[in-house]
């Protein structure tokens, strides 16, 4: 990862910038409801390997900042929502697309029940995402 940041730095023009966009350090939440009725039904099950991957990315970033290869200009977070029509659809989507992360059976059942009990409710996955702008020194 440090090597990737090093290469990115070489590709940049003078005055250019690096944008680092990736999930923040929170576990995505499964939300059911509508507006003020929305509530968290559960969270995704995340294996240790995913946490380790994120920690390694943070270490790589800290390393290039400590070495003064980049300076952090701005950092912020936003929420990224993924809307699904059913608990099963969300479960299958995560199984197909995500690594080391799943919607476990218990949470899937709770989600389906919450949808059944609230006519007009929507289902979505709420994930916090970090975005940072860095300038090469």
């Amino acid at each position, binding site marked *: 990862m440090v*090597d*990737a940041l090093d*290469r990115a730095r070489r590709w*940049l023009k003078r*005055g250019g910038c690096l944008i680092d966009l990736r999930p923040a350090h929170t576990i995505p939440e499964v939300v059911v409801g509508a507006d003020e009725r929305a509530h968290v039904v559960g969270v995704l099950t995340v294996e240790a390997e995913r946490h380790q991957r994120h920690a390694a990315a943070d270490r790589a970033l800290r390393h290039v900042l400590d070495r003064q290869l980049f300076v952090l200009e*701005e950092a912020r977070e*936003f929420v*990224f929502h993924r809307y699904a029509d059913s608990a099963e659809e969300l479960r299958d*989507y995560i199984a197909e697309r995500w690594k080391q992360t799943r919607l476990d059976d218990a949470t899937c059942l709770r989600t389906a029940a919450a949808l059944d009990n609230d006519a007009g409710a929507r289902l979505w996955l709420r994930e916090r*995402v970090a975005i940072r702008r860095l300038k090469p020194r």
Partner: protein
Amino acid sequence: MPIQLDPEEHEITALVELLPNLHQSRIVEVGCGDGRLTRRYAARAASVIAFDPDEVSIAAVRSNPPAGDVELRTATVESVDIADGSADVVLLSWAL
């Protein structure tokens, strides 16, 4: 209906806020995947080189390419050929 991703457009809003000169920018996007984010900003940028190691994903983007001056490549960070000092922005797209 397929899964709807970020219909509120929080992601592109955050990106544009951090890149006020997007329309003048030559962008290198690392880890573009299926081009989901590329589609949202490419038409606003001067040019884009977007790459990903996954051939299937790149083929999918090529079959329905984003608007704008976009060059797609199947490559890794180690193998991609990008000239030094050529990019205004390097975007690590959920890639680090």
